[in-house]
Structure formats: structure tokens, C-alpha cells
């Protein structure tokens, strides 16, 4: 019997190593897998390359990971925010490398990795600083930039419900990068509000098929009415 559920966030992230590339889901705090990130900080792996839309908000999640000095490089679209002070400080101190990617290219490059493509020609960014030095091509009268897939060793994502085969459904706009990051990482770890019996998820409504998920942890139990 295959059961991808793991007893704790600590156990789920135990094999993340120094230097790993780690995708972290979320758009701001919506969909950010906070318990997995806390476990990762406690676990101690450093020199990480983090792929996330932002570069941390406030004191928790990706911000805490940066504050703890675990992040060598971040690939993101929107690092500078009102409450991104931990990233700002590390960046100004030259302690963190930034690869800034337009958000749609970030999504497309992650999706390309999950789909096994070698590269894509995307129109976004053509003629801007963010395409400097990159190969470009005119196709059917429009200008495109060649962009490469973004792969990762691990993806840490947050979903609403999951089952022991790793099938996932999300909640509202907390879905964001979860489904495509799950496809792009070698090992995907999902924190879910509730692990449900196999068959509870409607097969027509599963958003992430279990093939893309290796481990599932249930976060602190929440009363049923709050997770419906």
C-alpha cells in the first residue's frame, strides 16, 4: 500500500541538503507552506536557492528563512515590498543573490520544467533590462526571448486537502504556484489542512494528480467547518 503521508513537517524535509534548489509556493502569504518552511529552518540546510514569487513578508516563512541566513540565491518576480525588510537588508549587504524574473516568465519556466521542455520563446521582457544578454528571435512578426526551464530539487507547497496517493485540491487564490511547482521539482512536499481517505476527492476536481507529489503532511488539526 502506498501512503505518502508523513508524520511531521520535520520528517518531510529531513533530506533537504545544503545547496538544494527549493521551490516554495505562495503569493505573499496565501499558499505559503509555513510549517514546512519552519521545519526547513530548524533542519539547518543552507546555501539554498529559493524559487518563490516574492522574497518574504514580515517575520515568517521565506522572510524567516532569509533572516536565518539560509538563502544563497532567490529567483522571484517581486522581492521589494513594504514588509520585505529581511530580504532588503540581506540584498543590500550583498548576502543574497537575486534573479529577477517577470512573474509570467517565472510561471512559464516552472511549467516548462514540469513538462520536460528544453526552452521556450516568450514575448515577455523583450527589449528590457531583464532580457539583456539573452537570445531573441522574431517569430511571425513578434519578438521573443529564449528562456530556460526552472527545475528544483524540492517543492514545498500548501494545499487544502490531500490523500495518501498525493492527490491535492487547493483553496481559492492559495492555489497560485502550487500545481506547477509540484510538477517541476524532483520531490514535492505538500502541507495540507486535512488528509482525507482515498476517494474523498472528486476525480474530476483533483487539481494536482498524485504523481506529482511525493510527501503529504497534515498541519495542525483545524475544526471541520473551518476547512470545508
Amino acid at each position, binding site marked *: 500500500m502506498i501512503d505518502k503521508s508523513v508524520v511531521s513537517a520535520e520528517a518531510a524535509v529531513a533530506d533537504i541538503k545544503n545547496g538544494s534548489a527549493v521551490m516554495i509556493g505562495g*503569493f505573499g502569504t496565501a499558499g505559503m507552506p509555513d510549517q514546512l518552511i519552519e521545519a526547513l529552518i530548524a533542519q539547518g540546510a543552507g546555501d539554498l536557492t529559493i524559487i518563490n514569487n516574492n522574497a518574504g513578508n514580515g517575520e515568517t516563512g521565506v522572510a524567516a528563512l532569509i533572516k536565518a541566513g539560509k538563502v544563497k540565491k532567490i529567483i522571484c518576480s*517581486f522581492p*521589494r515590498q513594504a514588509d520585505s525588510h529581511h530580504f532588503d537588508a540581506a540584498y543590500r549587504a550583498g548576502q543574497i543573490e537575486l534573479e529577477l524574473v*517577470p*512573474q509570467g516568465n517565472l510561471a512559464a519556466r516552472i511549467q516548462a520544467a514540469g513538462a520536460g521542455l528544453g526552452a521556450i520563446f516568450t514575448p515577455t*521582457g523583450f527589449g*528590457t533590462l531583464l532580457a539583456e544578454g539573452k537570445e531573441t528571435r522574431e517569430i511571425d512578426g513578434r519578438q521573443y526571448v529564449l528562456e530556460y526551464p526552472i527545475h528544483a530539487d524540492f517543492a514545498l507547497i500548501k494545499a487544502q486537502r490531500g490523500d495518501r496517493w498525493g492527490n491535492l485540491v487547493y483553496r*481559492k487564490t492559495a492555489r497560485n504556484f502550487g500545481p*506547477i511547482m509540484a510538477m517541476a521539482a524532483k520531490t514535492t512536499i505538500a502541507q495540507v489542512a486535512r488528509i482525507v481517505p482515498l476517494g474523498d476527492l472528486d476525480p474530476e476536481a483533483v487539481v494536482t494528480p498524485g504523481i506529482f507529489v511525493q510527501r503529504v503532511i497534515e498541519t495542525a488539526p483545524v475544526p471541520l467547518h473551518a476547512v470545508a
Partner: protein
Amino acid sequence: MERLNRHQMAARVAKDIPEGAYVNLGIGLPTTVANYLPVDRDIFLQSENGLLGMGPAPVPGEEDWELINAGKQAVTLLTGGCYFHHADSFAMMRAGHIDICVLGAFQVSVHGDLANWHTGEPGAIPAVGGAMDLAIGAKQTFVMMELLTKQGESKLVEACHYPLTGLGCVSRVYTDVAVFEVGPSGAGVLEMVEGLAIEDLRKLTGVPLRESMALPA
């Protein structure tokens, strides 16, 4: 001459959004356009973080922080709206499924180049978000901005000197004193506030301006 305030600017943009349009409103000033869309028109607001059919802000105290817009403000979902992942969301933009996107700007050139993501100042931390995708992806990109900087410089320019967001992507510019069309053949004036003459606009902007007062009502 009476300049439009931010509310009037938002109402002016809203007037040009037809029923059935799929629209993305950029963060900041453009977000306020939503408040002026007529409630009897089905207009579909898309948010880059994965929702279509975005509704107004929830009643205070009823915020759901997993239902937010691109500016990370709590929003609601209209009946008939739906959720999707980030790759599908940006496919909507990049392939021209979005009819209109409304963005703020530091500068717009008379040829429709847009600069709105980075001042290029040393030490400034750049952040681009979805601006580049929106700018070049939507069928039409509208810019909404005050015409002049606080220092009195025109933000409608011959050529942007801030780092570009996209080339030739803007079709129309809504400002506090006039509405412009921009594009391959340069800039034209579509509308002016009362009391302003096109010569005044030419002086304010320092760029060549056609009279193009033929905007259909």
C-alpha cells in the same frame, strides 16, 4: 482648468470598458477603476494570482486572506467566477485573452513604450511582478497616471529614460488633464479637461501632439 482627481480619473477609464470585457487592473491607482464599473454590466476582472470574476472588497472583519488580489488586498469572488493556477493565469495575459489591462506608469513614450517597474536608481531594489506580462500581453494596455511628476516634468515623453517594461505596448493614456492615444504614429489628444487648449498640452508635455478628438462616445 480643473484637473481630474484620482476618483474622476478612475471613472473616466471605467467609461471606456465595454460590457463583456476581460480586464486586469494593475496594483495601486488602476485598482480603483473597479469602483466605477457600472454594476449592470458584466465585466470580468482577472487577478494575476489566479482568479477571474473578482468582486469588491469584503465587509471589514470578513476578510479571507486566501482570497486576495495582486496587491494582496482581500477581495471576493463573484457568482460565476473561478480559480486557476499561475501558469494558466499568465497564459490568459500573454496570449491576448485579456482585452484590457490598466497600469500605472513612471513614463510612457509617444510610441507606446512603457516604463513602470524600476526607477533605475543605484541601490533601488528592482521588483517587476506581473507588469511586463500584462503590458505586452493584453489586447489593449491603458495607462492611468497624472500627466506631470511632482517636479512638474511630463510623464508622457518622446522616449522613456527609465528602464522599460515593454516596447510599443500602450495604446491609450488617461491622465488628470487629458486622454491620449499613443502608438507607431506618435501621440494624439483624444480629450482634454475644460479650459485647456492643445497648445497648453504641447507646452506641458514638450512632445508633438496630434488632435485626435474622434473618440467614439
